[in-house]
């Protein structure tokens, strides 16, 4: 029946509008929900979102060991050539040659923080850090070596 449909339409419209107003009204009266960060002023207490991605880092433990085996999966996964893994061959005590990372080169200036390298890494050696203050006066400083000097791959990581 036409009139029934009509009244139903009005009812549906009004209730859906009120639902929206309820949500925005909740935000208006609950000032603690405000997510604005007054950045340069609150540098010490800055709260970043959990999923915010600032730069790629390689994780090192206290023995200066990382989990990178030099497999170059990250390099292949990177869409714009941000990562260059230079590999070398270590000789194990048994006299076998084993591939290892020599220098993990990371071009921050090319990186789009897409997270594909982190997802591609089979051993979880790299991850995304939240540091975002990357400004430098010389862009060559943006080319970084991620494995620390003297570091080696952790025992048992294949």
């Amino acid at each position, binding site marked *: 029946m036409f009139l029934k449909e009509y009244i139903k339409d009005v009812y549906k419209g009004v209730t859906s*509008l009120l639902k929206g*107003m309820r949500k*925005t*009204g909740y*935000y*208006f009266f609950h000032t603690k*929900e*405000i997510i*604005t960060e*007054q950045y340069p002023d609150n540098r010490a207490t800055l709260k970043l979102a959990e999923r915010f991605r600032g730069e790629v880092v390689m994780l090192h433990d206290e023995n200066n060991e990382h989990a990178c085996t030099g497999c170059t999966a990250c390099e292949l996964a990177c869409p714009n050539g941000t990562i260059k893994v230079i590999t070398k061959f270590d000789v194990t005590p048994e006299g076998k040659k084993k591939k290892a990372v020599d220098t993990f080169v990371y071009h921050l200036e090319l990186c789009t923080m897409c997270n594909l390298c982190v997802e591609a890494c089979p051993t979880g050696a790299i991850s995304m850090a939240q540091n975002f203050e990357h400004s430098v006066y010389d862009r060559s400083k943006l080319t970084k070596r991620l494995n620390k000097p003297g570091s080696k791959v952790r025992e048992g990581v294949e």
Partner: protein
Amino acid sequence: MMFSLEGITKTIQDWLFSSFSPTVALLIECAIIILLAIALFAVLGLVLVLMERKVAAHIQIRLGPNRVGPGGMFQTVADTIKLIMKEGLTPDMADKFLFNLAPFIVMIVAMLLLAPIAFAKNFQIWDINIGVLYVSAISSLSVIGILMAGWASNNKYSLLGAMRSGAQIVSYELSAGLAILSVVVLTGSLQISDIIESQKDGWWLFKGHIPVIIAFVIFLIAVTAETNRAPFDLAEAESELTAGFHTEYSGMRFAFFFLAEYINIFIVCAIGATLFLGGWMPLHIGNWESFNHLMDYIPSSVWFMGKTFFLIFLIMWFRWTFPRLRVDQLLNLEWKYLLPISLFNILLVTLIAIMGWHF
């Protein structure tokens, strides 16, 4: 005696008429009123723009302006100074006369609308006996200013925005008028002071049952559309038409359009408060003498401003919640929903008025 605007105006008038001849006194009074109106415009523009930005920010989980002055209080003052110093460009191929005239027309219409509004008890510029009719007649003039601006700019966006604005105001005036009529029917008078007087034992929103509540909702929707505010802002629809009818305006002439928008919001909210929420009349409930007397201690100007700003907040809340309507949806809403409902509603209100079913 409490502070009251009534006393101040009476003292000034008595002093003027005792010191000067009636003609001169009248002229001086006119000058005072003009000054007051301009001052009100300036203050309202600053306050309402700041309020809008703060409301918008909090609704969107932001802080809003907070750098200029305590809590960003002087942000709009800074903006106004910037706008005053900016160059007011006139496009080369524009119709220069109409282009420069349009912002003033819009402003003058907003100023004319101030006349019948009762800001406090016996504090009214002109208590004309057709007050409500005057308001609805004058408010439709603002579309002329908008059309003029759109046409004279010689810009496709301006023209499209102005045409949309025309279609919108012409359609929504009907339901706004019918919503206003329902209160006029109950009161039996078009005079603003009579309408307020009739609400001294309760506001029409409460006295008039559900039909008046429906009329109030329709009034709110229609005036939101008439003032070209979101969700009915397709006259300026910045994502489609850059800024609609005021695309080509800059500097102070742009500020006039901007200011007129906010003044118009204030005026329609003041009218809404007068018709449905009792204007300056304090919250009175029937025969509860002590309660009514207690409410009278709050000055009438505070009541008026409180109600008006509550309605303004409601309209801002609409703006930052609802998405913009398409032009076909806009006309559907008016002609298929608001108009039939308000026509039926006014029948109900008339029935209530004739049978005396209201409180």
